[in-house]
């Protein structure tokens, strides 16, 4: 049972992060390599709001989540907008530059010390019993958040007007624009949602394990999960996260913990050889990559 819980928690971490990669790629065909940094910025946002609204944890969390979405929209308006019409490579390079800039800025602004946003919120990370297995309160919140985020996104993309527009823009931007859909608005929304979900992942990881600059690398570790599932599929991101997490946890437990570091990339390589567009990805779309 403990193994199942461990897999579920790790899969939720990867899925919540991978969701941002997928949202941006699916809508704009841009691979955001600043996602790890934006995720960390979300976590630092919580650290900042927890200090700012000391004694009011829910306000702090609400403000941090709002801030994360606003940062995503701002990134699009300030930088990625200019990339519209440019080659995909130029856009990807812009996200790399953005990531380097954010990393430096965060060190300058917040220093290099490990921070503990949960303590600053005045909360403790209790250990809970889940049918004989143990899970921390924050890890349970992370699992629930992942379910809620994916459920809400599925509903949004299928049933809401903006969601349908977003899918249309992702499938055929020219046709969507000709039908009167404002692409910049859609792209800004995608960046906002992606940064919100990534930021949420960052906040929850930081609340569970502390906030430090290595969080960026964890952001990159979710990348194979998104690719294995298919870079333009949210269902794929879920499946990919589950596969990678299961492989990691089972290897740690039954074989050698050191293999956990390489197994995501082994799975990814196998997938790229057998099915380069991923489990649930669209073949023609990934051919363009």
């Amino acid at each position, binding site marked *: 049972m403990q193994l199942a819980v*461990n897999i579920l928690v790790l899969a939720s971490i990867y899925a919540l992060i991978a969701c941002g990669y997928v949202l941006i790629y699916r809508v704009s065909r841009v691979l955001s390599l600043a996602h790890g940094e934006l995720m960390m910025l979300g976590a630092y946002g919580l650290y900042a709001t927890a200090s700012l609204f000391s004694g009011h944890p829910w306000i702090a969390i609400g403000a941090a989540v709002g801030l994360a979405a606003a940062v995503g929209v701002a990134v699009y308006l300030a930088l990625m907008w200019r990339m519209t019409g440019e080659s995909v490579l130029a856009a990807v390079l812009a996200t790399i530059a953005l990531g380097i800039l954010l990393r430096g800025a965060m060190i300058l602004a917040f*220093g290099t010390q*490990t921070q503990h946003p949960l303590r600053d919120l005045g909360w403790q990370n209790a*250990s809970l019993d889940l049918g004989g297995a143990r899970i921390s309160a924050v890890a349970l919140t992370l699992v629930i958040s992942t379910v809620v985020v994916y459920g809400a996104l599925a509903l949004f993309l299928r049933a809401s007007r903006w969601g349908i527009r977003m899918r249309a823009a992702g499938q055929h931007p020219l046709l969507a624009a000709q039908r009167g859909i404002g692409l910049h608005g859609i792209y800004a929304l995608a960046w906002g949602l992606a940064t919100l979900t990534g930021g949420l992942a960052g906040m929850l990881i930081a609340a569970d394990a502390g906030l*430090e600059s*290595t969080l960026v690398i964890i952001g990159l570790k979710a990348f194979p999960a998104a690719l294995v599932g298919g870079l333009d599929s949210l269902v794929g991101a879920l499946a990919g996260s589950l596969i990678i997490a299961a492989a*990691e946890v089972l290897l*740690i437990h039954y074989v050698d913990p*050191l293999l956990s570091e390489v197994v995501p990339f082994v799975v990814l390589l196998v997938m790229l050889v057998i099915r380069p567009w991923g489990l649930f990805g669209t073949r023609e779309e990934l051919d363009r990559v």
Partner: protein
Amino acid sequence: MKKMLFTMLTAVLPLGAAQAQDAYVLGVSGAMTGPVAGNYAPVVEAMKAYLEHVNSRGGINGRQVRVVVLDDQAQPSRAAANAKQLLAQEGVLMLINSSLSSTYAPMVAESKRAGVPLYFAGAVCPTETYPPADPLQFCSTAFGARLDSQAALGFIRKNAKESVRLGLAAMAIPISRGEIDYAEGLSKTMGMTPVEKQITPPPTPDYTPFATRLKDASPNWMWSWAPWVAQVRTFEAMRRLGWQGSYVTWAHLNAEEELARIKDPGFYVIGTNALLEDDLPIHAEIRAVAAKARLSHPVSYLTEGFVAGLVLEQVLRNTPWPPAPQKVLAAMNNVKVDLKGLRGGPLEWTKDNHFRTRQHYRVWRWDPQANRIVRAQDWQAIEVKR
């Protein structure tokens, strides 16, 4: 016109070279930014602040000390470029490394090429500083491979109420793995049973899968020697899984702050630097210097940098003016530094031993009754002979 030309020429002449004639110039290549900066930047900043404090009191031998700090972001290529720049442009008397071990090789090469001593401050002491030492490499950093495991396992053996089932935790970096492998072997010779060893990748999003395997092996004691993140996350994950044993780990810069955060009586830190809790007269000086220099790091992070500052002060005091790398080297080969209680005894370097002749260890834990950090073991000395 001639006067104007002269003024322009003097203005563009290298400032460093001019200053080098009037001051002891030291060059640091450190991980001041980047993912591991938290371990090194406080050391460099505290060391620099202490030497500025010395300057404000009149300097050393009537001369000022100038410290040139270059950021290598823990990247070997940057460390190599920094070392070249420090030697060629700044004409430093000594190179100082405060960064990851991957930056050592290029700096060692530059140090050898120029015949300038290389001092590791806050960075892991390379084996070349242990006896028989490399002629150019020196180290004052608190932790020492093998010695730390000897001290920690000695503490465990002394305090265990039943036979020791030992769990071991490391990070997947060579130095940490090497130490834990050594501890595993050593524990057997000390009558302990090593039951599980976990090596975590740097970094990992969730330590619970690693902790699960450790907990399942039912150790009653754990020893972890790794970067703080791996040590403490493994411990916290094990506690959440319901593990009740005792956990001994290395006292990194943030140990004092973390003991107060974790507040677990079964969580021990072993180290060679005194904690602020000891409230020594030198701690008041550290607080004053930190406030004056407006250091952003907590005062409890600064001890290692102050130790380096005290060492440099003593070495330069023994270096007659005008200084040269060879004179500095001679001073380093025979120095005994009074660390004013920041460690269990003086730091002594000899011609063959550039680590220290004696390493003193203390152990601390959180006492829930007293609601403060307490000593679990006072200074215990280990002779450094190998």
